[in-house]
């Protein structure tokens, strides 16, 4: 049972990283977005493996169902530059590659030298209901009620802002 979950993890992680790489190097932007969907799905499966079922499902609903569709719509609206011509990288891509690799090496070094490296997961308490707990935490005054309401304000600001920016008002309103 233990090795099975390890094998599943390795397969999913490799596919996810591979498709993340494809996201970055794909020439066609629509392909890039579709690879992004696969990456996000892989991350959702990892959430499932971490026994955060709610977050796994939410990841699919929000990222694949809404954000990637938004991205694809935006690509379609700005079609000319999404075509296959021209270089996809800017002239500094060598530097970028170096910085990213250094970043990765540094992160791995930090993780490896950290004493909690081989921590194993404790089994979850059977009575622990993440969704119920989440609901309680989001509205209780000594929990996260402020972030909860602020998220609403943030979304409102994003909605109004995006409409103001993207929407050309027609003269004959409403």
């Amino acid at each position, binding site marked *: 049972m233990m090795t099975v979950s390890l094998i599943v993890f390795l397969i999913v992680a490799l596919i996810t990283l591979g498709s993340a790489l494809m996201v970055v190097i794909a020439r066609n932007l629509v392909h890039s977005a579709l690879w992004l969907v696969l990456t996000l799905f892989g991350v959702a499966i990892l959430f*499932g493996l971490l026994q955060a*079922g*709610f977050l796994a499902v*939410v990841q699919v*609903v*929000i990222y694949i*169902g*809404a*954000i990637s*569709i*938004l991205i694809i*719509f*935006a690509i*379609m*609206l700005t*079609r000319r530059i999404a075509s296959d011509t021209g270089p996809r990288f800017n002239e500094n891509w060598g530097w970028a590659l170096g910085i990213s690799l250094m970043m990765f090496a540094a992160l791995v070094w930090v993780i490896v030298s950290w004493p909690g490296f081989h921590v194993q997961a404790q089994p979850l308490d059977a009575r622990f209901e993440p*969704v*119920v*707990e*989440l*609901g*309680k935490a*989001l*509205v*209780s*005054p000594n929990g996260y*009620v402020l972030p*909860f*309401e602020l*998220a*609403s*304000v943030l*979304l*409102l600001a*994003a*909605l*109004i802002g*995006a*409409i103001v920016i*993207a*929407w*050309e*008002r*027609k003269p004959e*309103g*409403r």
Partner: protein
Amino acid sequence: MQTQDWLFVGIFIVLAPLFPLIALLIPRLIAPRKPNPIKLETYECGMETVGPAWVQFKVQYYIFALIFLVFDIEMVFLYPWAVSLNLLPFYAVVEGIIFVAILVAGLLYAWRNGALKWA
């Protein structure tokens, strides 16, 4: 019990694409295959295809997807709220109503600005 349920769902997700895949592979073996350039043209009611398929879309599509995204996120916050509602005191309902009211203000803004009108 929960783990076994997730196992069921996981196997289902892996197997579900296999059934249509098999159904699509059978025609490869038995269906005829005689392509010619006219047959492979994209279909445009019998006319010759004009221009690229990538026509210009209006920004309305983006606006609707945007409002959808905002309400989708709202749902992520409200579903846990709905599940644990009976365990919480009365103020939780009020907080939920405030949360929704703020978002409805956004919807009203879009409405007043004509962003909801498909024209």
